[in-house]
């Protein structure tokens, strides 16, 4: 069950800043190690922000949480900008729902 808290997972440089705002920060060293952290956090937190590079490496795991109301696992860009993973997520979602992607601006 959600505990109404926010967690942030990613490389330390990117997510450390969230700590000052009261977000619980979990720095991961290797991108692949994040799977364990995310799994553990998913049991407790309502919202989990994951930096895009980590999210991309664990896309399969994150897709598992998509059909449930909680937790919301959301990819965010790191300090060195976005790589488009978040946007691609929206496109994939549209494609899943409508069977094809609508180019819309």
């Amino acid at each position: 069950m959600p505990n109404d808290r926010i967690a942030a997972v990613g490389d330390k440089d990117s997510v450390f800043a969230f700590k000052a705002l009261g977000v619980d920060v979990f720095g991961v060293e290797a991108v692949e190690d994040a799977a364990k952290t995310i799994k553990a956090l998913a049991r407790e937190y309502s919202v989990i922000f994951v930096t895009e590079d980590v999210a991309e490496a664990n896309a399969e795991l994150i897709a598992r949480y998509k059909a449930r109301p909680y937790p919301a696992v959301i990819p965010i860009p790191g300090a060195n900008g976005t790589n488009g993973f978040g946007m691609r997520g929206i496109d994939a979602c549209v494609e899943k729902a409508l069977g094809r992607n609508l180019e819309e601006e």
Partner: protein
Amino acid sequence: MTRLNVNPTRMEMRALKSRLKTAVRGHKLLKDKSDETVRRFMEYVRLNRKLRRETEAEVTAALKAFLLASAANSPESIAEAVEVPAREVRLKSGECNIMSVYVPQIEIEEGDDKELYPYSFATVSSELDDSLKNLGKVLVKLIRLAEVEKTCNMLADEIEKTRRRVNALEYVLIPDYEETIKYITMKLDENERANTIRLMKVKSMLEKESGGR
């Protein structure tokens, strides 16, 4: 399509007809549901795209500013400044029903408006203050993004499920019923005809017998 394996009797046909009626009605309802869900979904997707475009730029900017600020100070002083937050974010999470999908509704709870900066201004540079202020603003938007993106994901899932159901009804169940009902009707008619012929035959045989006498 395949015919169902049932006995060609009047009773079976009656039961099948009522099932066909239910299936047709269910198909119509599900189709309407799917149309409306897609409409709502498109609204959310548009919002999702917009929010994401905005927040992505803002988050990157805020994090970059924070990195620059921490470069201007010693890592120890940054760690000391940020490690123990002065305030705690709490979310108000509920559930909201969109087309019978329970989607989360997340709001950030602006608790007691305590000091944002968990450190003394004397120890670190002013860039840190700025970056934290911006990040605080972005966080509110990020929570909204989380809510919208989750809603999109769940609606997409639901649309896919509904579409499967609609297709199963439209292309499998309903044709099956129709074919079975047709088969039973033909079989019953055939029996009826056979019966009539038999009666006619018996009658003519009887007539022949009585005429000969």
